[in-house]
């Protein structure tokens, strides 16, 4: 089946710094999403981005489907950005998750 990898596995940032999270997937997919898991465990939708670039405030995402990767950019990071970021891909209507990137933003 499809493999989804994320890098880096862990990231520590000073507040105000920028970061790029990467998601690689091993085969063609119908869809790709980025999620942020909050401290209470809920998965919050960040982007639904099968291809192209989208922006939402300090966050933006780019998916290059032909090269099988997606990037999530976080600019001017804040402590509230801490948590785990997952990318997930759809393959034949199954949602397959990457292992996540654990982000800690320190004041």
């Amino acid at each position: 089946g499809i493999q989804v990898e994320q890098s880096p596995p862990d990231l520590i940032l000073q507040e105000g710094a920028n970061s790029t999270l990467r998601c690689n997937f091993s085969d063609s997919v119908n869809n790709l999403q980025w999620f942020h898991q909050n401290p209470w465990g809920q998965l919050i939708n960040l982007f639904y981005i099968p291809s192209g670039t989208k922006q939402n405030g300090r966050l933006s995402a780019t998916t290059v489907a032909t090269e099988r990767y997606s990037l999530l950019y976080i600019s001017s990071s804040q402590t509230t950005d801490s948590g785990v970021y997952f990318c997930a891909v759809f393959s034949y209507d199954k949602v397959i998750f990457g292992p996540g990137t654990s982000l800690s933003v320190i004041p």
Partner: protein
Amino acid sequence: DVKVTQSSRYLVKRTGEKVFLECVQDMDHENMFWYRQDPGLGLRLIYFSYDVKMKEKGDIPEGYSVSREKKERFSLILESASTNQTSMYLCASSFFGGTEAFFGQGTRLTVV
């Protein structure tokens, strides 16, 4: 706004009990999913359903069953709860064809 609601936020059950986790969505989605999340193992698919009364096994179906009698409701059943089923359980839904998926708030189940 899409809403996926799980019946309990926290649940404590005894070994051997039959446990029902309920999930309801209000967006007329065809697909519904159950995942469990464990430290170091990520999110793993237990079962999913693409229509009423239809179900397919995910990666870790052993020890679980599901029920989908109505389109908006997807239930996960632990026939005889065991301590190794202590975990965070997450329900999700989406339209057929791989569109955006939405998750419930999660249920932290502890089996003692």
